[in-house]
């Protein structure tokens, strides 16, 4: 750097500039609001979103806190109290064909639905987003190869893929998570890749290059955070899908082996007794599946609106 001229000769840059700079900042009396809070505000204005949120919170409490308060025997069958209709003493929602209490069983069964749903969606979202961001950012032949892999798996119907995998391995909860995630990551990968294609040409991503930053920084610090709206919205739909997939799997008998309880399994079991008029064996697990899936879909819709409004108001 060459010698700077005497400082006193320099005009103070900021009589004009400082005024321009500081004024609007002071006008805004509230402190800097993080974006998530604006998103939350818009989110809470959406009534369906609040309904969805309440349902999800209810199910989390129901499945994980419920068994601590409501004790029922879910290990030993009790044929004396089998097939009891709802409203029976000490069996509020009735019992199934081997005498398990329906209410207690719904609680236990929901645990695996929520756990597997959340975990599978999380794995699928994280892996898929990274995959898509890397492919989209690097472009060229890397992109071509990575996306052809995605296309290949997408060409196989996902339920078929999952069934195939589930029939090869003996399912445990951990393995089921992986199996469901294995078919679910393709969606986020394609979505995020598309988003990345437009984000990578943005000046602020170009600026990283100009500053001498590497690809990893561009992807992790700039591209993924700016695709977060798409990713989060997709993740909520992923949870709903994973719960449905799990229910479908266990309904078809490829779920976790008994005595493990599961909504899909309960439903499947209940269908054997439709002719006996034991409607409660079908209605309760079915209702749970529908409610939780609808709730997550409400959440996803509301989040999408919230993120979009933020973009519009900016």
């Amino acid at each position, binding site marked *: *750097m*060459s*010698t*700077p*001229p005497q*400082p006193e*000769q*320099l*005009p103070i*840059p*900021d*009589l*004009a*500039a*400082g*005024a*321009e*700079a*500081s*004024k*609007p*900042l002071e*006008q*805004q009396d509230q402190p*800097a609001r993080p*974006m998530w809070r604006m998103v939350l505000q818009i989110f809470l204005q959406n009534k369906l979103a609040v309904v969805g949120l309440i349902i999800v919170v209810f199910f989390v409490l129901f499945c994980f806190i419920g068994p601590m308060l409501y004790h029922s025997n879910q290990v030993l069958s009790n044929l004396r109290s089998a097939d009891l209709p709802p409203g029976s003493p000490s069996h509020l929602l009735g019992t199934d064909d081997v005498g398990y209490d329906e209410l207690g069983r719904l609680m236990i069964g929901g645990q695996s639905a929520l756990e597997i749903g959340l975990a599978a969606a999380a794995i699928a979202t994280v892996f898929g987003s990274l995959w898509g961001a890397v492919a989209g950012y690097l472009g060229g032949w890397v992109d071509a190869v990575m996306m052809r892999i995605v296309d290949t798996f997408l060409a196989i119907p996902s339920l078929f893929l999952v069934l195939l995998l589930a029939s090869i391995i003996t399912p445990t909860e951990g393995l089921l998570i992986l199996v469901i995630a294995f078919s679910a990551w393709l969606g986020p990968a394609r979505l995020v890749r598309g988003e990345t294609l437009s984000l990578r040409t*943005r*000046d*602020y991503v*170009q*600026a*990283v*290059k*100009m*500053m*001498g*930053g*590497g690809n990893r*920084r561009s992807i992790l*610090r*700039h591209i993924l*955070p*700016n695709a*977060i709206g798409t990713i989060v919205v997709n993740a909520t739909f992923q949870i709903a899908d994973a719960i449905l997939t799990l229910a479908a799997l266990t309904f078809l008998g490829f779920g976790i082996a008994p005595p493990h309880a599961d909504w899909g399994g309960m439903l499947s079991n209940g269908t054997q007794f439709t002719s006996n008029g034991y409607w409660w064996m079908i209605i309760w697990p079915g209702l749970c599946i529908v409610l939780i899936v609808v709730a997550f879909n409400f959440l996803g819709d509301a989040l999408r609106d919230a993120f979009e409004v933020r973009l519009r108001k*900016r």
Partner: protein
Amino acid sequence: MPILDVQDLRTEIAVSNGAVHAVDGVSFSVDRGELLGVVGESGCGKTMTALSIMRLLPSGGRIAGGRVLLGGEDLAAMSDKEIRKVRGKRIGMVFQDPMTSLNPTIQIGRQVAEPLKLHTDYSAQQINDRVIEVLELVGLPQPAKRINAYPHELSGGMRQRVMIARALVCDPELLIADEPTTALDVTIQQQILELIDDLRSRLGMAVILVTHDLGVIAGRADRVAVMYAGRIVEVTDTNRLFGNPRHPYTEALFEALPENAAETGDNLYSIPGLPPDLVTPPTGCRFAARCRYATDQCRSEDPPLRGDIAGHDYACFFPVGDQEMQVATQTHQIRRHDTGDPRARVEIDETKPLLQVEHLVKTFPVTAGVVLRRRVGSVSAIADVSFTVAAGETFGLVGESGCGKTTIGRHIVGMETADSGTIRIDGTEFTALRGKEKRQRQRDTQLIFQDAYASLDPRMRVGSILAEPLTIHGVGDRASRAKRVNELLGEVGLPRSAADRYPHEFSGGQRQRIGLARALALQPKLIVADEPVSALDVSIQAQILNLMSDLRARHGLTYVFISHDLSVVRYLANTIGVMYLGKLVEVGPAEAVYNRPHHPYTRGLIDTIPVADPWASKARGDDGVRGELPSAVNPPSGCRFRTRCPFAQEICAREEPQLRSFEGGHRAACHFPLEVGTAAGSRISASA
């Protein structure tokens, strides 16, 4: 009786926390054959005024009061059905962006015909004839053939001609043009303005020309209304406004123009602060908070719009300028504020070149097909460009869009790799470096982007944005980086609290300050500024230009300043390089290039720039570059400028001219260079 008479128009737009009083008591009138210019900075309500006349307000907008009389009928009181009969028939409108105003899936002939189908009962043949007639009128070559063309087949200038044709096809009494040339190149801008001017006198219609550019209206408008914060603050005929502005805001706008200080190199006058929030407009004069003459009276009382002489009204208690002057005869003397030439304060070491660009060539392939990328052609973006920038110098690179100036900038900072040629920075060949070494050298060169907002990650706080270059290069620890961020904010005149805020919380000028601060973070030797002020209003532009010249003096920076605006470049640069279609056609000391250009393109470019001086604009006539920039896919043989050059001869097509030296380091690539003094009389310098 005037064609349009707007009386006390008030327009409100509902927002979540109230209503924006976008237009607040505006009155003006336009006569037959008159061109009224409406000027003001962005957000002052000029576009809303235009949209209110057409009743095309955005959702939430409504006319809250006043009358809009078109030939005696009140448009504001009409039903939706009635106003639809006025739009497109009695009032034509031209929007800013011809790209988005035309439907890309419909042939232009059918789009121009649309108003006729809506408003007349012409037969298909009559419509066809009228469309061809109107397209011919706006200067579209071979209109009978072109009516089946789609918008993407036409250039930007031609699309804007089509837009004007569509506005004119029903012979409107009034044409409203909202920033009709802002999206166009300067040489095309000149042609479109000429067209509007010409049509108005031929068709005898009234025109309202809305623009932020004082230069655009100087040579064209009969009368000018200056708007500020939803009101007209001054209105009079063009010569009187430019010669004797009475409102301090008008005066400040003129003083902020870089051409006024280009010869002396003084710091520009910049209007402090920002326009007021129009949800709760301030009491008293709305300009008071930014006005250097404001008193307590200004802050409490609202000055009425009136004047000492007929035909010159202004809303100010303490008008500036000359009360007695009836008709001004020349540009008024600009008041000087600071002294000292910012260019002279910098030491330039001519013997020590900081940046050497030699024989730089870059060609982008044009591919077709999705799976197998066939190479079907190539765009010659940079074709053998060489220049040298000494340490401490400011090198201005000018040219129309698509001439390759931005591509050169991106090469200098290492964002692109050249096909051939070398770039040396401080003696080190930059182009040969790869990987880590290259990234290390990138510390020496930083880029400032045109769109500051787009260059700042919207999800990062300003503090993190400014610290990012330090983090990348592993400079200091967390605490020392935070300290450096504070220093940087101070350097560019932003408060420390800015570090905790997000980019969207800042105004355009502030964002460009953040961009500057980020560029300074690594203490670079060279800063490439790519159109840093072209997106800013003139008063904010002045602030940024002043800041850039201060920083240059304080840190001994070297700038490569890329711009399409020759007057901005002339103000800041020591040396100017003029580019045309990938070639450097002229380079030399700034004043020499500006005042004694040797290349016909430079001459034309200077003659085309709109000058905020009605006398100069009218005096220089129809010089300037004609036609449009040829495609860089197949650039013309020999001299690339020959297709638009008035002096082109056979040799120009055969042989490519090399840069030839003239006096004092001034070089130009032309077979028939202009002699010094040629045509000098035909042009009047920008500042009188």
